[in-house]
């Protein structure tokens, strides 16, 4: 229980010390500059923004499938189920990141490809490409993070890989 606060205190102390040391050489502008985040923090932030982008793309696709009419009810149901898993991914990832509220990530805007006028088939194909890219990115980033985060990222990467056959079959049925 004491390890967390102690580590935070140490991190806070080093964050304060570094700008002071640097400021001796470079002047006052560098005072208060936060230290660059570690590799694991960057990997986690990247995974979080990746999930947010996927969620946003799914929302666009579901809106389009809903607008397409009742014939796409099954597509909407399938996409909604995959979207629910991404929400679970995001919740687990954000639970691992303790960061100052001021640096909360800005809301992700829908990707241009998702909002551009395109057939639902093309939208689903771009979702599949995004899933594949996200899965591959996690698979490479999990090599640079602590074991427990690596396990979460591996699991999410595997889950996203299983979304591909679902999306491909949705695309084929169009």
């Amino acid at each position, binding site marked *: 229980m004491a390890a967390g606060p102690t580590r935070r205190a140490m991190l*806070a102390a080093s964050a304060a010390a570094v700008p002071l040391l640097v400021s001796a050489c470079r002047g006052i502008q560098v005072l208060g500059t936060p230290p660059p985040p570690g590799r694991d923090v960057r990997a986690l932030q990247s995974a979080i923004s990746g999930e947010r982008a996927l969620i946003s793309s799914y929302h666009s696709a579901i809106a389009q499938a809903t607008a397409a009419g009742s014939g796409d009810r099954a597509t909407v149901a399938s996409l909604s189920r995959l979207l629910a898993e991404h929400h679970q991914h995001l919740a*687990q990832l954000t639970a691992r990141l303790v960061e100052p509220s001021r640096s909360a990530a800005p809301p992700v805007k829908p990707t241009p490809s998702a909002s551009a006028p395109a057939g639902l088939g093309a939208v689903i194909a771009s979702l599949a490409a995004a899933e594949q890219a996200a899965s591959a990115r996690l698979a490479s980033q999990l090599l640079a993070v602590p074991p*427990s985060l690596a396990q979460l990222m591996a699991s*999410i990467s595997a889950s996203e890989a299983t979304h591909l056959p679902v999306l491909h079959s949705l695309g084929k049925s169009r």
Partner: protein
Amino acid sequence: MTRQQPAATVSATAITALQTALAAEQAACYGYGVVGAYLSGPDASRAHVDWVAHQVARDRLTATISGAGADPVPAAVAYKLPIPVRSAAAARSLAVILEDRVAQAYMSLVGVTDLEVRALGAVKLRETALRAAAWSHTTVAFPGLTSSSLDGAGSKPAISEPG
């Protein structure tokens, strides 16, 4: 374990995880024999493909563990099936259970700091998740992770940043 010097530098933790994965693959090889016996048509073909995949994985793990200077765990003569199998539906359910168990075993590989072993675990975890999804016709949010391991995640953040 033998006293000989490991041929490759693999940590004791990684060896233990590799042995866990090997034991899971051995059980899967046995189980898929049962799965295949109750299926016909495309499902039987898929069971055969998956069975071969598990045999290949088992043999590679055996070689990796031997190469690291350890004795691979021996396979059991027979395994108690987690569910009784008397039908095609039960055979498909058994396949999903076998894949889930293999997934959990590979998750232990992802948890080691040896990056080659970790990367192997991640690749195999993805393969087993794909097979499980094909058998169950559904997907899960966290292949290889138990709900208890996920519940604990929030209580110990991996990363803390100065405020």
